Every structure is written in C-alpha cells, then in structure tokens.
C-alpha cells in the first residue's frame, strides 16, 4: 500500500487539486485579505457559477471553461452591486464587523435556497471532451478533469498577481485597506477601488465555479464544504498575497490528498480546519503575508 507509486499518485492528485483551490480562494484573498470585507458568501458565489456553467452546458453545449470566462463579466457587475449594498448599509456607518458578517451569511443561504428552488437537490454535472479522459506519465495518472482546473487556477492566480503588483489600480487595491485617507491623498477614490476589487473577486468565484463542476458533480449546498477550505488557503498563504494563495492551495491540496489516501476521504475536511488552526497559532500572518 505504501509504494512509491502510490505516494506519487497522491502527490500529483494533491498538486492538481491545489491549483483549483487557489482559483477558489483568489477572490476571497482580494476581498477578505485586501479589502477587509469578510465575504463568507464567497463559496456560494462559486456554486452559483457552477450552476450558470451547468445551464449553458446542458442547454447549449457550451464548453464549461468558456462559460466561466463569459459569465465572469456579468458576475463582476453583480459583485459591484453587492459591494454597493454592503458599503451603503454597513461599511459607511462603521457597522460592518458583525452586521456585515450576518449580511454575507444571509447572502450565502439566499443563493443556496434560490438554487435549490430552481434546480432541486440533485447533483448536476457538465460534459466536455476532456472530462473522463486521462493520461499518464510513467505510473502516475493525470485526469484531465483535474488538470484543466489546475491550469486555469494557476493562470488566474498569475494574472491577479501581475494586476496587483504591476498596475496603478492594483497597487491602490493593496493600499486601500491599510489607509483609506492616504489613498485619497494619492488622488484615488477608495470606494471606487474597493467596488472594482470586490467585483473582480466575485468574477473569479464564478470562474472557480465552472472549474468545480468540471472536477465533479455539484449540488446547491456543496459550498458549505468549501468555507473552511477557502479561508484556510487565504490565511495560510497570507492575506492578499496571490503567491501565497497559490502555494497555500497547493499545500492544502497535497495535505488533503495524502489524508484521504491514507485515512479515507471523510478525514479530508478536517485537514483544512486543522491547517487553519495551526496557521493562526504559529504564523497568523501566513506564509507570504506582509
């Protein structure tokens, strides 16, 4: 059972899964890590993206990745609208800490209930030419349904990294939660920065949703399983660091893969919370946190 082959397969599966975890967490790293907006509904937006992808795949035969990228655009505007409501109702009056959290919690269940009413509780899946196929390097099998999300996740994290560190707008996003008045003194409207950044976060959630339904079937409440994961990756990587999100995703992916290979899949969920707790105790700023 503990052959090298077995270990290698678990490692590769974990790395592939990790790229997807990075894609799921990138948007949260933006909103929670850089804007101080505790968007606990982030996984619900991911599931929402899965169902959008499912709808156009089922009815029009759209490729799931393409669907995710196309839906990212209207989702950006959805995110902008959500942030505007959040800002005007909570942040503006300084009531964001607890009531804002309740707002996003409510949003989480609202999205879940809408999906249940619309589609029921059955699992849904998508079809694409790369789903169900795999290749192998030596004795290590690589399933395309894992490899494609890994690739897209890596690209997403890289694009966000470049956007944040190399553009004026990205640097303003990094600065806005540190000192909002100082951002104004640079000639920038902080509310606009936060609105756009939150919109981008929701757009990436919907892209991650298209990846999720490529990996496996999805039902409306599956987002609950991912709350711990996305927060673990975000905190482990270091709030707001895209490099950290990618590395954090890979670590969680590998850890989960080994845990489920050796102790069974039911333990996998405990890994994310375990990592989160250890990280908060040992290094609260995360691996790449500033």
């Amino acid at each position, binding site marked *: 059972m503990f052959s090298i082959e077995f270990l290698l397969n678990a490692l590769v599966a974990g790395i592939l899964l990790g790229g997807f975890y990075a894609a799921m967490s990138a948007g949260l790293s933006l909103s929670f890590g850089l804007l101080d907006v505790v968007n606990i509904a982030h996984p619900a937006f991911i599931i929402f993206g899965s169902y959008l992808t499912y709808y156009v795949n089922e009815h029009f035969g759209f490729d799931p990745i393409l669907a995710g990228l196309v839906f990212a655009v209207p989702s950006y505007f959805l995110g902008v609208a959500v942030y505007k409501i959040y800002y005007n109702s909570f942040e503006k009056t300084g009531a964001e800490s607890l009531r804002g959290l309740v707002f996003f919690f409510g949003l989480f269940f609202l999205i879940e209930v809408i999906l249940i009413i619309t589609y029921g509780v059955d699992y849904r899946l998508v079809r694409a030419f790369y789903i169900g196929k795999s290749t192998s390097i030596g004795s290590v099998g690589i399933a395309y349904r894992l490899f494609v999300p890994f690739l897209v996740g890596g690209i997403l994290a890289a694009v966000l990294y470049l956007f944040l*560190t190399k553009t*004026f707008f990205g*640097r*303003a996003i*990094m*600065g806005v939660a*540190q*000192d909002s*008045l*100082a*951002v*104004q*003194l*640079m*000639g*920038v*409207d902080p509310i606009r920065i936060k609105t756009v950044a939150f919109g981008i976060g929701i757009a990436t959630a919907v892209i991650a949703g298209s990846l999720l339904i490529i990996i496996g079937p999805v039902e409306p409440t599956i987002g609950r399983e991912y709350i711990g994961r996305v927060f673990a990756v975000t905190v482990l990587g270091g709030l707001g660091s895209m490099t950290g999100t990618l590395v954090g995703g890979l670590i969680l992916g590998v850890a989960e893969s080994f845990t489920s290979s050796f102790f069974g899949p039911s333990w996998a969920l405990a890994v994310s919370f375990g990592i989160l707790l250890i990280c908060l105790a040992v290094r609260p700023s995360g691996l790449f946190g*500033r």
Partner: protein
Amino acid sequence: MRSSTTRTWKGPTLAHSIVVDNVSAGYGAVRVLHGVSIQVNDGETVVLLGTNGNGKSTLIKCIMGIIQPDEGEIYLEADGERINLAGKNPEEIVNLGVALVPEGRRLFPRLTVEENLLLGAYREEARRGIDRNIAFAFEAFPVLAERKNQLAGSMSGGEQQMLAVARALMSAPKVLLVDEPSVGLAPILVSRVIAKIRELKEEYQLTVLMAEQNFNQAVKIADRGYIIVHGEIAFAGEDTEALAGHELVKKYYLGA
C-alpha cells in the same frame, strides 16, 4: 489643456496660489477655526506657526478637503483660473495639483518603499513623469533607493518622513502642503528633512505651506508666516525677522 509637465522654467502663466478667506471650521459642535484668512502666493514658502491644538492641522485639512469649512471660501488659483475648493473631496484636490505630506506620515506600512512611491504617482499627470520623478526621489533621498524593497512600516521615523515627502512629490504637485514634519523626529533629522523640503521646493518650483510648531526649524525655510492662536490668525509676519521679533514667538518659542 496644457500638454507638457516638463518644468524647464516657470513662466508667468504657471502661477499657483492658495487663498483662504474667512474660514471657520471644526469637528461636530467644536469650532476650531474662527474666521481665518491666509494667502500663499506663487512660489512662496509660508509657514503656519502655532503650538498644539490651535488649529494648524485643521486649516491644512480644510484646504485639502478632508474637513469641509462651515463658513468662508478656499480657492486655488491656477494659471489665472480661480477654482473653488469648497465641496471638493481630497482626491479631486490632489488631481488639481495640490499634495499633502500629512501629519503622522500616513504611509502604507505593508507596501514597500517603491510601491509607496509608485502609488504616489497614481494621477494621470504624474504618470507621465514617473521615471524622472522616482529617479529624483532616490537621488534626493539615497536611503530610499537602498531600501526600496523594504516595507515602509519597518523603517525608522526619519526615513518614513523622507518617504512621505518623496511620495507627495511623486504626484507632481504645484502646491505642497506639509503638516508638522518635525513631530516625532530627532532634531538632527528635523534639520535634514527641512533642508530637503527647501531643496525640493527649488527643484520643483513649488508653492509651499507648512504647519509647524518648531519655530527655529520653520524659519530656515520660510519666506514669511502666520501665527495662529486659538483658531485665529494672531499675527502675519511679512518676513522671518518680523516673525522672530514678535512677542508671541518670543513667548512661546524663544524662551524670552
């Protein structure tokens, strides 16, 4: 629209001045300023003197749009055009070419020195001159070049003040407001920062308004100044000798 930001030499049309006319302002029910009028003419360095709690910072904040005055007018005169600053927010005022080195520096502690400087050049007009300005900032403050990849929050107070001045200048301003640059700095560092501000003022041909409670340092750079007491202008000194000779300065600063 003027296309060039190259400041080869100041022409008569590039005049920038600040006019504060009879301004009253405060926080909530507390009034801090009572009918303050000052003027900072093009190319001048004017110092606003006063001990803590007399309204220096409040006046600077009013000009910058951080606080809206209850009464009175504030104008920026730019190229013969008179722009009313009342009702404008700080980002709009920055985009008119006014920069502030705020009290307490307000750097982005978890951004690097270089990222702080680049963020300073956010506004459209500043981006064109960004390479030249960053080279100049590093030349003026070599320590910033040495530490450009260090997080701003991990630097010493003096270095942070230099970064705050350099970052404000990255926005390619015409008017520079400086709020208490000496606070929290050792005397030797205060001298150095003040000397740098004077040097940069010459280089960039700035109009400068500086709030300061350290009289001896302030007069090194000032052309003239105002003494503000309990939210009112108590004395307007036409030159530094007039200021040094005034009884308030003698009483509060020179120990006479």
